[in-house]
C-alpha cells in the first residue's frame, strides 16, 4: 500500500503505517492524521513529538504506562492520564498516535 502527498509516493504497510520512518515530516503526519479523521492540535503534536523522540532513542514506541508518566512529567497530571490520551486519539494512543508519528505498528502479544 501507499499514499501520495505533494507529488511524492509514500509506501505503507497493509494497515497504513509508514514503511520508511525517515520519510516522515510534519506534513506527512498531518496527512495521516487526516486519513485517520484526527484533527491535529498543539496537544496532539505534543504526544506525537514525544513518541518520535522516544523511538529515536529506543527503536520502539514506549509502553503506555511510560507514555502517561512522561506526559505527566512534561505537561502535568491533566495531560498525563489515559483518558486524556484516548480523548486525543480515540483509536488508542498506542496505535493511532504511532501511526501519525510514522512509527511502525506495535505488534506482539499486545
Amino acid at each position, binding site marked *: 500500500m501507499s499514499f501520495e502527498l505533494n507529488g511524492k509516493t509514500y509506501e505503507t504497510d*497493509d*494497515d497504513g503505517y509508514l514503511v520508511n520512518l525517515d520519510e516522515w515530516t510534519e506534513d506527512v503526519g498531518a496527512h495521516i492524521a487526516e486519513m485517520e479523521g484526527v484533527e491535529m492540535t498543539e496537544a496532539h503534536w505534543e504526544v506525537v513529538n514525544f513518541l518520535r523522540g522516544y523511538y529515536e532513542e*529506543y*527503536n*520502539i514506541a*514506549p*509502553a*503506555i*504506562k*511510560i507514555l502517561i*508518566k512522561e506526559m505527566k512529567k512534561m505537561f502535568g497530571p491533566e495531560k498525563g492520564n489515559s483518558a486524556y490520551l484516548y480523548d486525543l486519539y480515540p483509536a488508542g494512543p498506542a496505535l493511532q498516535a504511532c501511526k501519525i508519528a510514522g512509527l511502525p505498528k*506495535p*505488534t*506482539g*502479544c*499486545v
Partner: protein
Amino acid sequence: MADNEATVTEEEPKVLTDLEKVGEPAVPRKKPKDVHGDELTGSIKVPKVEENVANHKPYLCKPVTMEKLGFPADLREDWHDAAIAKMADLLKKYKSLQVYMDICVKCGSCTDKCHYFIGTQDGNNMPVARAELFRKVYRRYFTTEGKILGKLAGAERFDLDLLGEWYSYFHQCSQCRRCSVFCPYGIDTAEISMAAREIMDHIGVGQKYTNDIIAKVHDVGNNLGMNPKALKATLESTEEDLEEETGQKIRLPLDEVGAEVLMVTPSADFFASPHVESLLGYAKVFHQAGISWTFSSAASEAGNFGMFIGNYSHMQKLASRVNDAIREIKPRRLVVGECGHAWRVAYSFWNTIIGPFDTLDPKYKRPQHICEFTLDLVKNGGIKLDKSQNDHLVPTMHDSCNVARGARMGDKPGGQFTIPRELIKASCNRYVDMDQDTIMEKTFCCGGGGGLLTDDLLELRVQGAMPRMQAFSKVQETHGANFIALICAICKAQFTKILPKYGVSMEVAGGVHQLIANAIELGAKQ
C-alpha cells in the same frame, strides 16, 4: 485508437498473482442442518465489527520476511509437487498425523465444539471439515482408493482454489485442541493445522503476523521487538512506579549473573496493559520471599510462535535463547511467566529441544510455572496475602487452552487447573467458576490464540470469543463476576480488545498475578 487503448487498460481489473489469489477470502460454507452449534449462544450475540477489516483473511507475509525465515519468497513455481513431497515427509515424521488421517469415522462429535464454528456458523469451521481439507489431499496422493477413484473416494487434487481454502481455514483455527477432547479417537485438529501451515510456509505461503514476529525474535530477541536498551529503560521506569506505589525498593533485575531464579516471561508483560500488572505481581513475590531473581535480555521472550507454524527448527532456534541465558546467568532455577502457549512449549518441548537442564537444581521442576512457584510460597509462609484487598472483585478463571490441554502443572494430574484456582482463592474472598462445559479441559479458547491475534482477523476474533463471552455473562448475572483471571499474554490482549465490543469493560481482564500484586503483604515478616 490510442486513447481507446488507454481507457481499456485502465479499466482492466487488477490481475492477481497466484499468491494473491491464495490470500483472497474464502467462501463460507453452509452448516449442515443437523448441526446446531448454538448450545452456548443464548442471550449473547456476536457484535458487528465496525472497523474496516478484511474478513477472515490474514495478510500474507512479505517476501523479505519469508526469505529471512528460510522460506521461499513467493509461491513456488513447483508448489504443487513441493507441497505433496512435504506432506509425505510430515506423514512419515509424525506418526500421529498419519493416524489422524486414517481413523476419522465422521461421527460428528466434534462438529459443534469449535469456538470459531459456533461464532461464525461457517460449515468449514467444523473441526472435521477443517481436517477434511487436509484429508482430501492426503487421500488423493497417499491412498489407493483416492488415487483410483478420486472424488468418489473423497480425494481431491491440490489446486490453487484448495490452497486458498487451506490458507483461510487453517488460519481460522487457534490450535486450541478443544475438538480433540470430544473426539472418541482423540483426533487433534490442532496438529493437522500446524502441519498445514508448515506445508504452506514451505511452498511460499506464509502469514504475516506470525512470521513477522518470529523474525523479530531472531533479530531483536522478543515478540515486541524491544531491544536490551529499551528493555532496561522500561524495567527501570516500572521500578520507579513500584516504589511510588509501595514506598519500597522492589527490583526488576535484568541480566544479573548468579541470581537464584532466571525468569522468562512474555515480552508483553514489560509493555502492555493489563500484562504489566502481573509483572508487578512477580516482582513483589520475589521481593517479599527474599529470593534473588533476574530477567535476561538474551531470553526476553517466553512465547514461541514457531509452534504456531508447526516449524520445529524455528521453535528450537527461538527456545535456544533460554539456554544462552542459562549459560550467562547461571541460575539454579528456571521459572516461566504467564503465557499459555509458552508454557506448553516449555513444559512439553524444552527438555527435548534445549534440555537437559543439568545445571539447574533438580529439587525444583525444570522449568517451573510462576503459579506453582508462588503457590508454594503461599503454602510455606514465604509470602502472606490479604484477601480483603481484592474484596471489590469477583473473579472467575479462564483456563488458557494451551495450559489446559497442552501441558500440566505441579505434581498432581489436573494441577494446571487447581494451582491457578488455589492462588486466586488465596488472594480473594470470592470466586466463581463458569459453566463446567467451558472450563478446565473443556475450556474455550479466548479466540485469539494460535497466531490469530492480529487486527486483520479482528472479526474472526470477535466471533470466536462468543462462547467464552456467553459463559462469562452467565456468571456475571448470577454471581456478579467482574474479573476474568488469565495466565496467558495472548488471552490478555485478546480480551482487552474484545470485551468492549461485547459491552464489557476491558478492566475485567487481568492476570492471576495481578490479584497477587493487590493482596500481597509487603514489609518486615513476623
